[in-house]
Structure formats: structure tokens, C-alpha cells
């Protein structure tokens, strides 16, 4: 029941929000106290220009975990509409230049995967526990399998 409905909701979210991964789990404390480890964020990507204050999720070349931080500086070019963006975690003392790739000073639109528009607390802990202690994942899948096998109808 719940597995199929989760799958349907997940696919629908991907369509509605126009983003590859419409939901992300917060993994670090760099946006506390607003976002704690284990919260999940709903993302949306629209063609609207990036503006200061938005909370964006971006990828850095060479790192595979996306980062969720706030935009603090924007410089948008008149002729091309391209944009230079600087981000910072609310709880970090300095901006994200230390996190960017070597020699990279600004983020550009293609680095950004989505904007955070909504949020649910605590629900992401399931994902964190399953990633950090894979044994729990195996126990869960084993138990689900047993349930399917042992049901009679």
C-alpha cells in the first residue's frame, strides 16, 4: 500500500516541480537553527532569475553531495542575462568560496538545481540512518520481504 503510493507521489513531485530531485535531506548544521540535520526540503526550479535571499541547492564540480545554502550576492549581466552568485550557510561564519571548486569565485545558473520552497522537520532521519548504518536498510528490506512472503491473501 504505502510503497506504491510513495512511488506515485515521488514521480508526481518530479513532474510538478520540474526538478531532478524534488526532495533533499539536510545533512549538515550549516543552516541552523532554521534547517536541522534530518529535515527534508521541497525544491522547485523555475525560470525566474536567481535573487538574493533565496535558499538554493547547488552542485560543485567534483563533489557529489548537493549543498543547500542562501544566496547573498547576485550580479546579473545585462546582455546575456547570465548571473554570478555567491552563497553562504546561515550558520557559517564565512561565505562559500572555500567550498567552491579551485579557482571558482562565483556560482552560475547551471550549478543550481532548485530553490527550496517548503520544509518538513525530522522526516529525513530515515534516509540518514539508512545511509550511515546500512545494516538497518538490510533489516528493513528483510522484514518487508518476510511480510510479503508470509501474507496469505
Amino acid at each position, binding site marked *: 500500500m*504505502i510503497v506504491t*503510493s510513495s512511488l506515485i507521489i515521488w514521480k508526481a513531485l518530479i513532474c510538478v516541480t520540474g526538478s531532478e530531485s524534488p526532495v533533499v535531506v539536510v545533512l549538515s548544521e550549516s543552516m541552523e*537553527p532554521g534547517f536541522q540535520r534530518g529535515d527534508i526540503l521541497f525544491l522547485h526550479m523555475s525560470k525566474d532569475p536567481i535573487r538574493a*535571499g*533565496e535558499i538554493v541547492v547547488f552542485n560543485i564540480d567534483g563533489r557529489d553531495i548537493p549543498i543547500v545554502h542562501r544566496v547573498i550576492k547576485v550580479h*546579473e549581466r545585462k546582455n546575456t542575462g547570465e548571473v554570478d552568485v555567491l552563497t553562504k550557510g546561515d550558520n557559517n561564519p564565512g561565505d562559500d568560496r572555500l567550498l567552491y571548486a579551485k579557482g571558482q569565485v562565483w556560482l552560475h545558473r547551471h550549478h543550481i538545481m532548485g530553490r527550496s*520552497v517548503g520544509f518538513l522537520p525530522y522526516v529525513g532521519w530515515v534516509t540518514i540512518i539508512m545511509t550511515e548504518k546500512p545494516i538497518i536498510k538490510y533489516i528493513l528490506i528483510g522484514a518487508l520481504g518476510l511480510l510479503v512472503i508470509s501474507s*496469505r491473501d
Partner: protein
Amino acid sequence: MHSFGYRANALFTFSVTALAFICAIASLSDNFSDQNPSAEIQILNINRFKKQSYENDEVSLTLDITADLQSLFTWNTKQVFAFVAAEYETPKNSLNQVSLWDAIIPDKEHAKFRIQTSNKYRFIDQGHNLRGKEFNLTLHWHVMPKTGKMFADKIVMPGYSLPDAYK
């Protein structure tokens, strides 16, 4: 149909659905609150205005910020993130937004404040366009809920300008 497995599964599905429903209602309730925040910013002093040794203009200034954001807090609000950004146009860039100061307001009592501060983040242009530049100071706020949709808005205060010469 009455085995433990089926009952546990049905109970779990029901409780998750009910919880999701409650979160959605909590978030919806935020749309009905009446909001009228207010703010005023004065530039107290331009501390330094110079050209960095290789490229860009940089300004350091002291701001006096007064704001009343108490009406933004609802029962579903966890915190309000407020920041002040300077916004201006240059020949090359249609928009530049530089955040000068920000703060996390954890509750309603702290939402009415007045502070004097120099800019937390460096105000650096891409180029040498800041002499005599007119700019807006905008107070933005981002309401972060306990659960659900986040809201953001701003007050734009135009009419600030920088000196015509470096100092």
C-alpha cells in the same frame, strides 16, 4: 485480513497520511495571517571607499537599521531570517544585489529592533562603478515555518547614494 501484519501496515499508512494532512493544514493557516512589517534604514557613515589594488571598488559603511517584523510571526513560525541588501545597476550588469547584513530572529520579542552596525559582508562591485552611485537598500525577510511553505518578501527603500570620490 486480520493478521498483525495487515493491521500494522494499515495503521502506519493511516497515521502517516494523517500527519501529512495536519502539516498541510498548518502550512495553509499561514496564508491567513495579517502582515504589516515596517522598517527604516539610515546610513550613518561611509567609513572607507576605495579601489582595490587590482580590480574593484569597495565600500565600507555603518548602517542604522530600525525594523518591526513582529506581525510576521504566527504559531507556525520557527524563525525569520532578515537581511539588508544594496541593489544597484551598472553599465555591464542589469542588477547587482549585495547583502550587507543579516540576522536570525528567533521569536516575536526579538522582531522589533534597532541596531547600528557596519556591514557584515564586503560591499564589492564588479568594476569601478560605485562613485556617485545611487542605490536602493532593501530589507528582505524569509519566514521559515515549523512545517510547510516558506514565505519571503521585502521593503525597498530607494534614494541612497555614494560619494563622488574615493576616500
